[in-house]
C-alpha cells in the first residue's frame, strides 16, 4: 500500500511542508513564502516545487494533515463574516457586559475587545431552559423565523444560536437552528450546545459567536484547498490539526473552525514530545522561541497537557483577560512576549526591562541594518558572541555587530551605568528570566515540579536561550532536535490521528443514573470511531479512552480524571471516586474528606496507532576542527575562547564534550556555557546536561 503522508503548516511568514515515505523511511522538507492573499496559492506552488525538487510524484500520498494561522489571524484582524446572534430573551447584551473585570488594576485606560456581533444583530427570542435542563418557557418558533428574516436584511453570512443552559439541553438551539436554516439556507450556523457545551454563558456564547464568525471563511478556504489539491492529483483525505493536537476531517473542521486556532503551536508541542520520547526522555517542556514570542508547553508521554479554555485576539497581547475567551480543547501553552526581536529599554524605575514590545521583522533588531535602532535580544546575543554575523540564516543574511553594540551602548549601558557587555549580558539574562518566571508559574499551576522535565528547544532563538532558561528552572537536560529552527511542521505527522468528543452532563457521583450515562458514552464512542475511520490503516481498530471533568460539589474548577471502560455501575463509581482522589491529591497535596464529588463533563477520545517518524539529521563528512570565537557567558566574567562547531560535521552518537561550545546550523545556533556537557545522540539530537550547583 502506498504510504506517503504530507504535512502542510501555514505560518505568518512561511509555509512549511514535510513529506514522509513511511515504507522507505525517507523524509522531505520544503519551505516557501506564505501567500496571504490566497494561502492556497502558496500551498499548491510549494507542493509542486517540493515534488519536482525531490523527483517525487503525488500518487503515493495517502493522507494530508494541515495546520494554519488563518483562523487566529481572522479573529485578530476582524476579517470574519458579518454574523448575527439569536439568544434567550433578556440576554442579548451578555457579549458586551462580559465579566466586568479589569485585567490591569492600575491602568485606568484599559480597553476590552468589541463583541464580534454588534448590538443590532443580536436578537432575542422567547424560550427558557432551567439549570436542570427542563424547558420552562417553550421556544417561540415564529419569533425565531422573524429574527432570521431580520438578520437576512443585515446580509449576515453566519448565525450563532446561544441559549441559556444550552449545554444542559440542546433541544431549543437545535430547533432554532433548523428554522434559521430553512429561512437562510446559505448561511453558516453555530449552536452553543455543539461548539462549547459547558456552563458559564459569557464564555460559551463568545466561543460560539467566534466560531460562526470564522465559519464561512474556513468553509471557503478548506473547500478551495481540497479541490485544488485534487486538481493537482492529491485527491486524498484532508485532515486538519486541532488546537489539542487531535485531528478532524475537513468537513467537521469547517463546522467548528474555532477548534483549530492553535493548530500550529499544537504541532510544535507534538514534535518536541516526539523527539524527546524517541530518545528516551519524558516528561518534556517544549520551548519554541521565535522573533516575537516564546511558547512553552508541557508534554507528557508524547501528549501535550491540555486545557479547555484559551484566550485569543487580546487587546493587550500579553495580558490575560484582555482577549476573547474560547472554551475549546487546546494544548495548554503559555505565550510570552520574549523573542529575538524583543526590545530592551530603561524603565521608569531606572531598571532594565526587556519586551514584550518587539521590533518584529521590520525594522528588526539594530544588527539587521534595516533601520531598526532599538537594542534587542538578538543584538545582545550577537554582541556576546553567541551568533555568527556571517552565518545568520546559513549566511543568507549579514548582521552588523557595530550597530548592535552602538544601540546597546547609547540607549542602555550609559543610562544604567553599566559597561556595554554587562548590559548585553543583562538583556540576555533578563529575557531568559522572563521566560523562566512565566514557565515556573505555568508549571506550578499544573501541579508539577520543573526539575523532572527535559527542555526541548525549537524555533530560531530557542537553542540560543534554552540552557539559560532550563538552568533557572532547575531543569537538568536540554535537547535540541535536528533542524530545530523549522521542526514544528513535522509535528503534523507524528501524532496518532485522534478524535475527541465531550458531553456536559453534571451529576453527583453518589446519585448517578448509570443507564443514561452509559447511553451517552456509547454514542460518543461510536461517533468518535466513525470520524476517525478515514485515518485508520487496513484492519486497524481505534483505541478508545474515557475521562471525566470532576470536582467537589460547589467547587468552580474541575480536574480531568481517567474513567474506567465498561458499564456505568457502582463499581464504576467507586473506581471513578478513587481516580478523582488520586488526581486531586497529586495536584493539590490533599483531599477534602467527607465532601461529595460531582461529574461535569464526560469525554471520549478515539485514537489510531502512533505513526513512526524520525527527524533526519544532516550529516556530512568527517568531524571538522572547530573554529574559535571569544564568547561572553553570564556567569563567567570575561570572554572565553570557545569552540564553534558546524552541526552537520559532528556526526551521530558522539562522545560527551564539555562546554563552553557554540553549535551552528543554518536556522539556529545552540549555546552551551562552560562546565555543561553535551553530545549528539544516535538520532541526531543535541543533548546538553547542565552542570549541577550553579544557579543565577
Amino acid at each position, binding site marked *: 500500500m502506498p504510504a506517503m503522508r504530507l504535512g502542510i503548516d501555514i505560518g505568518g511568514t512561511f509555509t512549511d511542508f514535510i513529506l514522509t515515505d513511511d515504507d522507505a523511511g525517507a523524509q522531505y522538507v520544503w519551505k516557501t513564502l506564505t501567500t496571504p492573499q490566497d494561502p492556497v496559492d502558496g500551498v499548491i506552488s510549494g507542493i509542486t516545487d517540493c515534488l519536482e525538487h525531490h523527483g517525487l510524484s503525488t500518487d503515493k500520498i495517502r493522507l494530508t494533515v494541515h495546520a494554519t494561522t488563518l483562523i487566529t489571524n481572522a479573529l485578530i484582524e476582524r476579517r470574519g463574516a458579518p454574523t448575527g446572534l439569536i439568544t434567550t430573551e433578556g440576554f442579548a447584551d451578555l457579549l458586551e457586559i462580559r465579566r*466586568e473585570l479589569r485585567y490591569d488594576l*492600575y491602568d485606568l485606560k484599559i480597553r476590552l475587545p468589541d463583541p464580534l456581533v454588534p448590538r443590532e444583530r443580536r436578537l432575542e427570542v422567547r424560550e427558557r431552559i432551567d439549570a436542570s435542563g427542563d424547558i420552562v418557557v417553550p421556544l417561540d418558533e415564529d419569533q425565531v423565523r422573524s429574527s432570521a428574516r431580520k438578520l437576512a436584511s443585515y446580509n449576515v453570512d453566519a448565525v450563532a444560536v446561544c441559549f441559556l443552559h444550552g449545554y444542559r439541553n440542546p433541544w431549543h438551539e437545535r430547533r432554532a437552528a433548523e428554522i434559521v436554516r430553512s429561512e437562510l439556507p446559505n448561511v453558516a450556523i453555530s449552536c452553543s450546545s455543539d461548539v462549547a457545551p459547558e456552563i458559564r454563558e459569557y464564555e460559551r456564547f463568545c466561543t460560539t459567536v467566534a466560531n460562526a464568525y470564522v465559519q464561512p471563511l474556513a468553509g471557503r478556504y478548506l473547500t478551495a484547498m481540497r479541490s485544488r489539491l485534487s486538481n493537482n492529483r492529491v485527491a486524498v483525505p484532508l485532515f486538519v490539526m486541532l488546537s489539542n493536537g487531535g485531528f478532524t476531517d475537513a468537513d467537521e473542521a469547517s463546522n467548528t473552525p474555532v477548534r483549530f486556532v492553535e493548530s500550529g503551536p499544537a504541532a510544535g508541542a507534538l514534535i518536541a514530545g516526539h523527539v524527546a520520547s524517541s530518545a528516551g526522555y519524558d516528561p518534556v517542556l517544549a520551548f519554541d522561541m521565535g522573533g516575537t514570542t516564546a511558547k512553552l508547553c508541557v508534554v507528557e508521554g508524547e501528549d501535550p497537557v491540555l486545557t479547555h479554555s484559551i484566550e485569543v485576539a487580546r487587546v493587550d497581547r500579553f495580558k490575560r483577560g484582555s482577549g476573547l475567551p474560547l472554551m475549546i480543547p487546546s494544548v495548554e501553552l503559555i505565550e510570552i512576549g520574549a523573542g529575538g526581536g524583543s526590545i530592551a529599554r530603561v*524603565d521608569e524605575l531606572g531598571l532594565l526591562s526587556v519586551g514584550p514590545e518587539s521590533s518584529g521583522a521590520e525594522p528588526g533588531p539594530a544588527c539587521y541594518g534595516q533601520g531598526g535602532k532599538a537594542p534587542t535580544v538578538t543584538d545582545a546575543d550577537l554582541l556576546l558572541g553567541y551568533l555568527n554575523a556571517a552565518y545568520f540564516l546559513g549566511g543568507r543574511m549579514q548582521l552588523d555587530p557595530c550597530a548592535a553594540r552602538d544601540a546597546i551602548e547609547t540607549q542602555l549601558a550609559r543610562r544604567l551605568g553599566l559597561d556595554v557587555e554587562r548590559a548585553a549580558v543583562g538583556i540576555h539574562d533578563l529575557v531568559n528570566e522572563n521566560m523562566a518566571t512565566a514557565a515556573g508559574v505555568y508549571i506550578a499551576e499544573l501541579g508539577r515540579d520543573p526539575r523532572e522535565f527535559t527542555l526541548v528547544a525549537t524555533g530560531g532563538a530557542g537553542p540560543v536561550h534554552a540552557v539559560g532558561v532550563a538552568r533557572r528552572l532547575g531543569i537538568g537536560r536540554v535537547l535540541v532536535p535536528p533542524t530545530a529552527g523549522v521542526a514544528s511542521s513535522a509535528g503534523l505527522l507524528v501524532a496518532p490521528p485522534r478524535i475527541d468528543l465531550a458531553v456536559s452532563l453534571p451529576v453527583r457521583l453518589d446519585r448517578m443514573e448509570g443507564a443514561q450515562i452509559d447511553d451517552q458514552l456509547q454514542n460518543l464512542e461510536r461517533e468518535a470511531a466513525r470520524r476517525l475511520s478515514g485515518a485508520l490503516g487496513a484492519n486497524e481498530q481505534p483505541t478508545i479512552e474515557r475521562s471525566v471533568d470532576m470536582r467537589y460539589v460547589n467547587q468552580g*474548577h474541575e480536574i480531568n480524571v481517567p474513567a474506567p471502560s465498561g458499564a456505568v455501575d457502582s463499581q464504576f463509581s467507586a473506581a471513578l471516586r478513587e481516580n478523582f482522589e488520586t488526581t486531586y491529591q497529586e495536584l*493539590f497535596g490533599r483531599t477534602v474528606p467527607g465532601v461529595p464529588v460531582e461529574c461535569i463533563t464526560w469525554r471520549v477520545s478515539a485514537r489510531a496507532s502512533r505513526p513512526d517518524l524520525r527527524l533526519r539529521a544532516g550529516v556530512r563528512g568527517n568531524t571538522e576542527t572547530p573554529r574559535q570565537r571569544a564568547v561572553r557567558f553570564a556567569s563567567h566574567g570575561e570572554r572565553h575562547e570557545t569552540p564553534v562547531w558546524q552541526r552537520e560535521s559532528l556526526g551521530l552518537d558522539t562522545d560527551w564534550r564539555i562546554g563552553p561550545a557554540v553549535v551552528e546550523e543554518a536556522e539556529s545556533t545552540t549555546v552551551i556555557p562552560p562546565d555543561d556537557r553535551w553530545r549528539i545522540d544516535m538520532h541526531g539530537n543535541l543533548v546538553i546536561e547542565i552542570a549541577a550547583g550553579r544557579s543565577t
Partner: protein
Amino acid sequence: MRQTDTGFDPVSLRILWNRLIAIVDEAAATLRRTSFSTLVRESNDFACVLLDRHGNSLVQNSAAIPSFIGTLPITVRHFLELFPIETLRPGDVLTTNDPWLATGHLPDISVVMPIFQDGSLVALSASVAHLPDVGGRIRSADARTIYEEGLQVPPCKLFDAGEPNDLLFRVIRQNVRVPDQVIGDIMAQVAANSLASRRLLRLIDQTALDLPRLATAIHNVSEQATRDAIRDIPDGIYRSEVLTDGVDERLHIRLALTVEGDTIDCDFSGTSSEVDYALNSVSNYTFAYTAYPLKCLTSPDVPNNEGSVRPIRVHAPEGTILNPRYPAPVGGRAMIGHFLAAAVFEALAPALPDRVQAPSGSPLWCLNLAGAHEDGQFAVAYFLNGGQGAMQDADGMPCLSFPSNVSNTPVEVMEHLAPVRVERKQIRRGSGGAGTHRGGDGQRLDVRLLGSRPATAAFLADRLHTPASGLLGGLPGEPGEVLLNGEPINPKRQRAVAVDDVLSLRTPGGGGYGPPSKI
C-alpha cells in the same frame, strides 16, 4: 527619572522582584483552583500578599483587589504586635476577621503565615478572601451594631505549630449557613499561604538571597518613583466633596488633598459623622481606597508595595464615617469607601485633567440571598457593576468594576447555586452621562425567586439619589434603581422576598467628561 542606590544592579533587582511576583501569582492560582465558593473563583474577591518580617508588603498577586492589598499589611502589623516574634513558631497560622484590624467587614477572613528559615522569621505570607457567609443576619446596611453582622473572630491561631485549632473550626462551622464552603475556602487560603512560604524559602536557598536588603531596595525604588511623580504635580491644596445616598440623610465625604513637594496628604476633616447603619468605613479601608486612586495617577506601571504608599498620608477624624468606632456596623463599607476614588479624582482634576476619570457607577453592587432549598441552606452573593466614568480621551466602558475589581457571577452559575431564575441581564442604554466623552452604561439584572419558601434579600446598592456626577463639564449618569415587583424599594433595608417575587437591580451609569458638544 533618578537613579536610586539600592545595592543591587538594575538587572538583578528586576529579576528577583519578578520572582517574588511569580510566587504570589502562583499562590493566587492555588487559592482560586481549590476554593469552594463563587466569591474567589468567579468573582475574584481575594488577594495574596508577601510581606517582609516587619509586615511591609513586598508584592501582591497581579489581579488583586485594591481594598485587600491596602489593608492586609496593616493587619499583619497588628498581628506582629499581638503575637510578638518570639511567640511564633513554624507551622503557625494566624487569622482574624476583626474589621478594625483587617479589611473593614466581617465576611473577609485574613489568614497570615509566618515564614521561618533556620528558626528565625524571614517574611510572612498572607491572604484574604471574602467568605460566602459569616453568620448573623446577612450583610445589610440596616444593621445597627456589629453584633448583628455575624461571627467575630478575634486575632488567634488557626493552626498552632501545625496543629489545627479544632475549637475555632467548630465555632466557625456552627455559626455559618454553608459550613463546607466556608471551611473549604479557609483551607484553600492556608494552602495558598503555605505554597508561597515554600517557594520563598526555595528562592532564598537557591540564590543565597538577602531578603531584608531586597525588601529595602524594592521599597526604595518604588517610593522614589511615587515621589518623582508627585513632584510633577503643582503644590497646592486640592479640595472636593462627594455625596452618597446614606439612609436617613445623604452623607458627604470632604477631602482636602495637599500636594507639597513629593508628598500627598489627604485630610477628610468635615466628613459626615459615623452612622448607625452599616455604611461605616474603618480607617484601614479608608486608607486603602484613598491610596489606590493615587497609585493609578502617579505610578501605574510600578508593581505596588509598601514603598508606593509611603509618600501618602491619610487622615480621617475618629467618629466619622471614614474612621468609625467599635461597635459601629460596617458590613456595607463599600457604599462609602468606593466613593473615595471619585473624591481623589475630582480634587486632582484641575492639576491632572488628562489622567483623572469621571466618577463611575460605583459602588460594587451585590444581591445577597439566603434561605433554604432542597439541599439545605443556601447563602449567595451575586455581584454586578455600574458604568465606568469617562476620561479626557475615552468613553467609559459599560458595566466595569471600579474602583474594586470584582467580577459578575455568571447567570448559569447563579441559577445552579440558589432557587432563582434570572430573567434579564442587559445594558441600560444611555444611562452613562453625556459629555465630550460619555460615561459607560450601567446594567439591569432581574431575578425571580423560585422554590417553595421565602428567602432573605439584602443589597449593596447606592447612587439611587446621587448619580455619578460628570467631570469638568460632563453630565451625570443615570442614578441606580432597585425594584421589587416593579415598585421601588429601599435597598438599605434587608427584606423577605416571597416565591415568585422579582427583584430588579439597575446599576448607575458613569459620569461624562467635558462639556457635551452642541449639535
